[in-house]
């Protein structure tokens, strides 16, 4: 156990825990755009920055990204100091210049009193905030079908050579986890289109509803040794089947008890 102070309150945390998790658990709100529970912290959006100090630092303090900073004994954390708020405002102001049309960014910026960017809007700006969640989650899934390409201000998320990505299985992990919802996909019953590729959607053998893509199912059954038949039935029908089985078992037991 590590004891530290957050905004004047003494709290306890486990060794190795990151500040962001501890602050949030304790009810302190910290915005974060590049953080995702399923993947390692990244430190790109800089919104989760907090001010830290220690008694022995003699008045010196530091600004760190809480998503990446492991708790330390006797740390004094300020999640909303003047500088921290100013930093978040600046970051959101800069983000707004790049993606003025993103409802998510607009809302978050408004919370910090930024209703319009004070900078020159970026030509060709889209709503991607380059948080890297899509590419990192894709990598975590084992596909690495997309990545960031280029550097600096021209960096974009794209498949290799900006062509339809051969390693994509159409799982939607990128699109569904994108904080600003900028990765489009189309499901039209039997097929799914994403990143310029068209995938076959497996139809549930019981109810006929589309489930996951055939490529995703094949990959899962290969890498996770799940029998291919498992994916022929949708989750709902799986649940129904299980409840029926459970019901029958309960019936047998009742019969047997008599």
């Amino acid at each position, binding site marked *: 156990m590590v004891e530290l102070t957050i905004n004047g309150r003494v709290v306890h945390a486990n060794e190795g825990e990151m500040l962001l998790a501890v602050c949030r658990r304790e009810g302190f709100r910290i915005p974060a755009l590049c953080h995702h529970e399923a993947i390692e*912290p*990244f*430190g*790109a*959006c*800089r919104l989760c*920055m907090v001010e830290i100090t220690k008694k022995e630092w003699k008045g010196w303090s530091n*600004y*760190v*990204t809480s998503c*990446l*900073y*492991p708790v330390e004994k006797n740390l004094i954390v300020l999640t909303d100091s003047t*500088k921290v708020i*100013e*930093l978040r405002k*600046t*970051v959101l102001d*800069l*983000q707004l*210049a*790049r993606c003025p049309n993103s409802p998510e960014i607009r809302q978050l910026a408004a919370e910090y009193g930024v209703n319009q960017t*004070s*900078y*020159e809007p*970026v030509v060709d700006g889209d709503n991607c*905030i*380059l948080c*890297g969640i899509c590419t990192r989650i894709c990598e975590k899934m084992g596909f690495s079908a997309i*990545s*960031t390409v*280029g*550097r*600096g*201000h*021209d*960096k974009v998320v794209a498949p290799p050579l900006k062509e339809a990505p051969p390693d994509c299985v159409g799982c939607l992990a990128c699109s569904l986890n994108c904080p600003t919802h900028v990765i489009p996909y189309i499901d039209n019953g039997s097929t799914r289109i994403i990143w310029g590729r068209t995938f076959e959607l497996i139809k549930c053998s019981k109810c006929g509803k589309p489930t996951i893509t055939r490529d995703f199912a094949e990959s899962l059954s290969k890498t996770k040794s799940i029998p291919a038949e498992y994916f022929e039935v949708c989750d709902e029908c799986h649940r129904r089947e299980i409840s029926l089985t459970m019901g029958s078992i309960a019936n047998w037991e009742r019969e047997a008890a008599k």
Partner: protein
Amino acid sequence: MMHIESPKQLAEYRKKCVAEESKYTRKVLVCCGPGCLANGSQKISDEFKRILSSKKIKGFSIEALRDTGCHGYCEQGPLVIIEPDGTFYTHVKVKDVAEIIDETIAGKKVIERLLYCDPDTAKKIEKYSDIPFYSHQTRIAFRNLGRVSQCDINQYIAIGGYQALAKTLADMTPEQVIKEVSASGLRGRGGAGFHAGKKWATCAGIQEKPHYVICNGDEGDPGAFMDRAIMEGDPHSVIEGMIICSYAVGSNQGYIYVREEYPLAVVNLQKAIEQARELGLLGENILGSDHSFDIHVSRGGGAFVCGESSALMKSVAGEVGEPRAKYIRSVVKGLFDKPTVLNNVESLANIPVIIDKGGEWFSKIGTSTSTGTKAFSLVGKVNNSGLIEVPMGTTLREIVYDIGGGIRDGRPFKAVQTGGPSGGCLPESKLDLQVDFDTLTKAGSMMGSGGMIIMDDRTCMVDVAKYFLSFLVDESCGKCVPCREGLYQLHAMTVAVSEGRATEADIEKMEKLSDMIVIGSLCGLGKSGPNPFLSTVMYFRDEYLEHIRNKRCPAGVCRALIQYTINEKCNGCMACITACAHHAITGKKKEPHFINQELCDKCGACYAVCQHDAITIT
């Protein structure tokens, strides 16, 4: 080549190398450093070889002809030096070679025409060591540059190379080595100025294995080539430094990360590593000791940010060279998440000398907090551009005037930019500052890795800030928002100033934004990114205000704010008409010319060619 099994055998081997070298009393050293090569020195060396291979000269053999590393005085290149007299020939051309052979090598006569001419006294100076450019320098990291062939291990050993390694392995414990390096006070030459001894001690103290040693040869600063000169011209001193480090910190594997644009450095390092392996100075049981160490040369990822430690280690590991946040230092968790010592090329090249002569000796050079010397690449509007090495604490004035020979064309000095693209510009009032880590930082600039750009009165400081910011915007890896978007906006606002579109309030806004970029960015690039703006606005605020209030660029550089006109001094020579690619100038021969402002592109070509001071910039 023999495989050397002990320090004693190395001493014997050295005797042979010395004997071999002493056969050549007369030597011809052809500089094949980056500057001279660019000026065609390879052709000069080839011409020497061609003539000498068919010509017998008494007391001279072709083995005494050497393609050496950079002599530093690139301004005067291609350079040829004839030892033992140290006769220093400048601006040598291929057609001069036959004459040098006949007159100087065979005839022992000096060719006046090729000697260096002191611009102050207009006298010719024959010897290398008497030239002011050299006499104010102290060469430690550059000690061998220009003295030996680019990568010849026997020559290196003959002049004392690998003696420090032998001493380390035979007489010193790892702790003693670290103590010596700590005592020297050596601080990292790659920019941050971290104490090398401390870094080594931390690494050595970590139980977890393996440990790695990496040499940072990324040298991304535009215009800087100190590390390149060492890697190409004296690779063995870097290798020796690394082996000593590996012994001190208990590492068996090292990497040299070389910038992609330095193919010759890669070739020479690899050659040198091969030679060291053959002699048993690298590999298993070095010099018969228990210590084993090998080095792999790793090619850079081609981006400026790859020189940053965490990005570099990712790149060495084969990943994309993007910095990661490191609240755990790389000396604890570095390459492959293992304890890693990362040192710059110049830092490592100093190590053998520190072991040889002792940490205390080294600590007496320079200032008390910045010991030793520092190499700089002196470029810009200075008379003597090139590579220099001076004791820490040398003043900027000494560098600019005594070594650099003052400003070109006798123009006034305006600023010196140090610290690479994210360094800062210091004005004339700071010329008496001593150059060391802390003084430069305090003055709003930084040491960086040693780029030094001299600017004259025709330089616009807003334009300078704009230039470096645009470099940094391009080189930002784009990972974190303050750097990627913040520097982009800061650059855009600087452009607005240079085009007369900014207000005074914008300056304050830029200062505030800079502050946020500094505290908000993930890595050193972003954290130091606003420096070009901050240092110029600190020392040249009036120049910014002049652009804003009066829509005027006092230096006559910012295109949107200037006008080229022709004044009464015009004698109608027509030079400007020919130079203008936009057909904006009209006028008959021997009659005053005229610039049509609508057609003028403000490229300044007319200004550059006019010999009569007849073009006015307003």
